[in-house]
C-alpha cells in the first residue's frame, strides 16, 4: 500500500517551520531521522506522569516505570521477531552494541583467530575490532567490492574460511547496497562462524526478522527509526549471550556483590549496567508502534519506488555531471543515494543545497576505508524516509542545477 506521505509529514512537528522562508527538505535521515509527535509525546508523558528509576523502588511510580521500560523491550522483541526479551539488550546506540561485542565476544577468541569485515563498513563496525586486534593477536580480513558497490561474494567465501566472526553491515550507509545476509549466514553455519549484523540502516527501512536472517547478533540505533537519540539495541541469541562475559560493570548488572567479588545478573540486565536510558527506551517503543502502524513492508516499497524515481531523474537531468555510487537496481538498495557532482567538492554542493533548505550529508560518512576504495574524499548523500516524496527529489534536482550554474560547470 502506498504511504500517505502528507499525513505522515503532518505528524512531524519539525516540518511546521520554514528555513529562510523555504520549507525544509530533509534528506539526511541516514544520519538521523526526524521524530513524530507520538514519540515526543510518549517521552514527555513519561516524565510528566510516571518518572522513576527502573528495577529499584517498590513504589507506585517505580513499578509503572519498570513496566513501561520492559514493555518497550517486548515491542523491540516483536519488531525483529526475537525469541525472548532476554535477547534484547538496550544500549546507548549501535556503536555501543558493536563495542560490547568486540569486547565480550572478543574475549572468547584466541590468539591467531580471524574476523571477517568488509570494505563498506561504518567506522563503528571497524574500530572496535581493531581495538580488539590491538589487545590480542587477531587477524582482520577484508572483503572488497565490485564496481556496483556490492560485496565480492566469491572473495567473501574464500576469506571466510575458518574465521570466528563475520561482522558485516546489512545495508551500507554510503552505497545503499543491501547485502545478501542470508547467504552469508548460511556460509557461516557451515563452518561455525558467528554472524554480527550492523543493521543500523536496515532495521528502520525494512521488515526485520532475526530468525529469517539467521544472524547471531544484530545491532541498531533508535534515532534512525523515528526514535530518540541515546537508545540502541543489541540483539543476540540467548544461548550465546548467556555465555558471554559482561562488558561494563556497575549496578543493575549484578545479583550480588561482596568485597570478594560479584555475581552477574540474568539476561538482559547483565549487559545493562547503571540507570538505563528509560525515557529513550519508551520513546523507541512509541517509534516502533508508529512504524508498525504504517507497516514495514509499505515503508520498504515506498523507498524502492522513491529511489527508482531519484535514480531516473538525477541521471536524466544531470547525467553529464553526476556520478551515483552503489547498485543500479533500486530493489538492491535502500533509500539513500551517494553521489559526486562534477569536480565540485561535496561540501560545496551541500552548501548551495542548504541555501534551498535542503539538508543532505557531505563527507566520508564514517566509512574512510570505503572512500579509499572508491578513490574519493567525500560524497554528497541524500537519504530518504517515510516523510519524503517525489516533489522533494524534484527540489533536489532543481537545486543541483543551481549548483551547476553557480560553479559554472558545463551543461
Amino acid at each position, binding site marked *: 500500500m502506498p504511504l500517505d506521505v502528507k499525513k505522515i509529514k503532518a505528524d512531524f512537528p519539525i516540518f511546521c517551520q520554514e528555513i529562510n522562508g523555504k520549507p525544509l527538505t530533509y534528506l539526511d535521515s541516514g544520519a538521523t531521522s526526524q521524530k513524530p509527535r507520538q514519540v515526543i509525546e510518549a517521552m514527555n508523558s513519561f516524565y510528566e506522569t510516571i518518572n522513576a528509576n527502573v528495577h529499584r523502588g517498590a513504589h507506585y511510580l517505580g513499578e509503572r516505570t519498570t513496566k513501561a521500560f520492559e514493555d518497550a523491550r517486548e515491542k523491540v522483541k516483536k519488531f525483529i521477531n526475537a525469541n525472548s526479551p532476554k535477547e534484547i539488550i538496550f544500549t546507548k546506540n549501535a556503536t555501543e552494541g558493536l563495542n560490547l561485542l568486540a569486547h565480550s565476544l572478543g574475549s572468547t577468541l584466541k590468539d591467531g583467530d580471524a574476523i571477517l569485515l568488509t570494505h563498506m563498513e561504518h567506522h563503528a563496525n571497524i574500530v572496535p575490532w581493531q581495538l580488539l586486534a590491538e589487545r590480542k593477536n587477531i587477524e582482520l580480513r577484508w572483503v572488497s567490492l565490485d564496481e556496483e558497490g556490492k560485496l565480492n561474494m566469491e572473495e567473501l567465501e574464500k576469506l571466510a574460511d575458518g574465521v570466528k566472526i563475520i561482522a558485516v553491515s546489512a545495508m551500507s550507509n554510503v552505497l545503499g547496497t543491501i547485502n545478501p545476509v542470508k547467504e552469508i549466514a548460511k556460509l557461516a553455519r557451515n563452518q561455525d562462524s558467528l554472524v554480527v549484523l550492523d543493521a543500523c540502516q536496515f532495521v528502520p527501512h525494512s521488515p526485520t526478522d532475526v530468525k529469517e536472517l539467521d544472524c547471531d547478533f544484530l545491532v541498531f540505533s533508535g534515532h534512525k527509526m523515528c526514535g530518540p537519540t541515546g537508545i540502541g539495541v543489541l540483539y543476540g541469541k540467548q544461548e550465546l549471550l548467556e555465555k558471554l562475559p559482561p562488558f561494563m560493570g556497575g549496578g543493575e548488572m549484578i545479583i550480588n556483590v561482596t568485597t570478594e567479588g560479584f555475581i552477574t545478573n540474568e539476561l538482559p540486565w547483565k549487559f545493562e549496567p547503571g540507570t538505563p536510558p528509560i525515557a529513550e527506551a519508551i520513546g523507541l517503543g512509541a517509534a516502533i508502534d508508529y512504524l508498525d502502524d504504517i507497516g514495514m513492508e509499505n515503508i520498504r516499497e515506498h523507498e524502492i519506488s522513491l529511489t527508482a524515481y531519484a535514480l531516473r531523474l538525477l541521471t536524466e537531468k544531470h547525467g553529464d555531471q553526476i556520478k551515483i555510487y552503489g547498485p543500479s537496481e533500486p530493489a538492491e538498495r535502500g533509500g539513500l543515494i551517494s553521489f559526486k557532482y562534477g569536480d565540485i567538492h561535496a*561540501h560545496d554542493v551541500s552548501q548551495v543545497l542548504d541555501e534551498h533548505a535542503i539538508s543532505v550529508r*557531505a563527507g566520508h560518512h564514517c566509512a*574512510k576505508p570505503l572512500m579509499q576504495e572508491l578513490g574519493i*574524499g567525500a560524497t554528497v548523500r541524500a537519504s530518504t524516509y517515510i516523510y519524503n516524496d517525489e516533489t522533494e527529489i524534484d527540489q533536489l534536482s532543481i537545486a543541483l542545477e543551481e549548483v551547476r550554474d*553557480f560553479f559554472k560547470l558545463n551543461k
Partner: protein
Amino acid sequence: MADLEDLYREIILDHYRSPRNRGELPCPPAHRAEGFNPLCGDEVIIYLETKDGKLTDLKTGGQGCSISQSSASLMSEAIKGKSVDEIKKIATAFKAMLGIESGNIEGIREESSQNGEGPEASEAVKLGDMEALKGVMKFPVRIKCAVLGWNTLLTELEELQNS
C-alpha cells in the same frame, strides 16, 4: 544567494581550481605534516623547509572542499620567506578575522556573533587576498575548513621548534 557569493569569492574559486605551491618536497631535509578535518574528510598536507628561523620553501597537497584547499593555497603564498614569528602573527590575525580567539572551540559560536563582523585583525598584519575568506564567518561549520591548513602548519612549526 548573496551569502553564497560572499563565501565563494572569485579569488577563492581561483585558488581552488589552480592551487599555488602545490606539490611535494623531499623529506628530509623538508618536514611533512598532515591535517584532517574528521567531520568531512578534508585533508591538507604541508611540506616545509626552514632555515635560521625562516620558512625557506613549502609545498602543499591534500584534497577537500574549496574552502580548505583555497585557504591552504592562500596561506602558502602569504608565508613563504617569512620568519616563524611573522607567520604566527599572520595566523593569529587570520583566525581573529574569522572570530576565533585562542581557547574557544572552532566552528561553534553563539548565534548572535554569526552575523556580526569579526574582531578586526590586528592593525600591523595585512591579510591581503586572505581577506576573501572573511565570508566564511557566516557559515560556522566551514570555519574548520578555513583554518585546517593553518592549524596543520602551526602544529608542525611547534614540533619543529621543540625538536
